[in-house]
């Protein structure tokens, strides 16, 4: 038996190291180029994935940055159950989110509808409504809000014209969060721009057909606009919920870092910051972070489940 006849073709070629099979040589080289381009991203991912699991580990420890982390099992989580401030911060965050997100989306959709049907000066209107959403997270605007809603601020001066004696909006625990909800609604511009882009995608013929069938404006809105826009509404809803759950700057600046008055602006992330970076309870802060992650994931999942019943994909 000769050495070459019975051997598979690949083995023959492999005898000559100068010419490996093309497919085998090309693949690692092709891969190498891709991996080189992704190199910074890979490093960045390490810097995401490792902290992700590290924070899960830290959530079960007692750690103050000076001593080594001490494993305490689920103690952080049981402590969270009995932490009144944590409950308060959850409440503040939920109230804020569930009031301001729907309101701002409704305003965003309403204004987008007004702007959609071909209007002169669209670019100017869009700019005016969009600008606040770029500034809403800045310290300067929160400071401005603090003074506008102050006891002697212009909101109360305005109410004074109608004989209404306004409260000290930012110093009264009953109203402090309201001012931040107003601030959130003020930044409806970014979902509005997304709605506008979505409205543009709806073919005009649907409206023409609906009008021919005698559908009123309201009926057209309900039966054409809403279903066809529902994927966009869904997207905006998810995005707004996720960002709103993570509100920090507004509460911090309005209250000067305390979450006051009477913890009425103690957002969840503000409390997390206080636990982690004022008191250096790094384990507790990690546990809090994971709980918020679970809450956000649960709401997102719930939304995706509910989406089956109201989001309509026009394929």
């Amino acid at each position, binding site marked *: 038996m000769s050495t070459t006849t019975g051997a598979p073709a690949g083995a023959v070629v492999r005898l000559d190291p100068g010419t490996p099979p093309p497919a085998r040589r090309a693949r690692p080289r092709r891969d190498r180029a891709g991996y080189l*381009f*992704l190199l910074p*991203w890979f490093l960045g991912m390490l810097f995401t994935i490792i902290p992700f699991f590290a924070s899960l580990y830290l959530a079960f420890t007692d750690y103050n940055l000076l001593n080594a982390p001490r494993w305490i099992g689920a103690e952080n989580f049981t402590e969270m159950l009995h932490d009144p401030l944590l409950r308060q911060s959850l409440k503040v965050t939920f109230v804020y989110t569930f009031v301001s997100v729907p309101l701002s989306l409704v305003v965003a959709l309403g204004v987008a509808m007004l702007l959609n*049907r071909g209007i002169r000066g669209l*670019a100017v209107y869009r700019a*005016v409504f969009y600008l606040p959403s770029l500034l809403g997270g800045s310290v300067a605007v929160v400071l401005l809000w603090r003074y506008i809603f102050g006891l002697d601020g212009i909101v109360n001066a305005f109410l004074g014209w109608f004989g209404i004696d306004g409260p000290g909006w930012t110093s009264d625990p009953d109203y402090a969060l309201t001012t931040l909800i107003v601030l959130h609604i003020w930044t409806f511009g970014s979902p509005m721009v997304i709605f506008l882009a979505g409205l543009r995608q709806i073919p005009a013929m649907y409206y023409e057909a609906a009008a021919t069938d005698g559908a009123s404006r309201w009926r057209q809105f309900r039966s054409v606009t809403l279903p066809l826009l529902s994927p966009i509404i869904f997207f905006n809803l998810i995005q707004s919920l996720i960002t709103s759950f*993570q509100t920090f700057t507004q509460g911090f600046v309005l209250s000067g870092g305390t979450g006051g008055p009477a913890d009425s602006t103690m957002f969840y992330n503000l409390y997390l910051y206080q636990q982690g970076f004022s008191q250096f309870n790094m384990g507790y802060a990690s546990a809090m972070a994971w709980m918020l992650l679970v809450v956000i994931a649960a709401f997102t999942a719930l939304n995706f489940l509910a989406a089956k019943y109201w989001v309509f994909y026009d394929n």
Partner: protein
Amino acid sequence: MSIDTRTPARTARRRAEEESHLERVGSSRRSRFTRHVLLCLFGAVMLYPLLWMVSSSVKPSRQVFTDLSLWPADWDLGNYPDGWVALEQPFGVYLANSFVIVVLSIVGNLLSCSLAAYGFARLNFTGRKLFFALMLGTMMLPGHVLLVPQYIVFAKLGWINTYYPLLVPNFLATNAFYIFLMVQFMRALPRELDDAARIDGCGPFRTFWSVIMPLCMPAFATTAIFTFISVWNEFFGPLIYLTDSELYTVPLALRQFVDSEGQSQWGQMFAMSFLSLAPVIGFFIAGQKYLVKGIATTGLK
């Protein structure tokens, strides 16, 4: 997004004609009028707080409150020079710090995200789909989950009270949104460009640098503007990583005004607040086109 070969002026004129045509077709004269009135009124309410801030910055402090008018009765430009030196450092230090961080963050994001985006959009390699899904997944991941371990790592590296924690992540393509934006843009470019470049003897890097990069300028502009605005406004990162007032960024500096509640400082605070918002407003006006496109493509905020 597509590459628009028409001249901007012509496009703008055509669009304006289209708009006015649509407006005339779509509705009656009266409903159009009501719509404009509604929008103008609402727009005025939206802008009022900002305009009031600007006007308050040139009013004498005792007049600021309960004065609803936008036109100052008395002018006092002294708020600007006084506010400039009211905090621990002259305000120029904070502006310069913010500026340095913003510029380096833009460079970092553009470099690292465009490299990754090219890899995802144009190259084929083992595990590409998996990595791409992972990248999209990180877009949804709330940043605070990573916060504590990242802080610990930076602390162990001795990077607290330096700009490294704020800058290095931007050079490691950690902003998945920008990668996604660029991937979307690059996918729309014709494949023939890569083939032509390869036939001319370009390797992947040369193709990226000389062929794809120059065509991606609109996506880069969007990324640069978004990076500018978000980094300029960024509060949390500087708050936990910077302790020395010499290193403070503008938002951290402004916050100091809260601690000094004296009435005399209101005008100064508004003056410096306006200085801090002016670059954002300027960038917004200059780059509105890119912003609107970017936000419509990816849902960035």
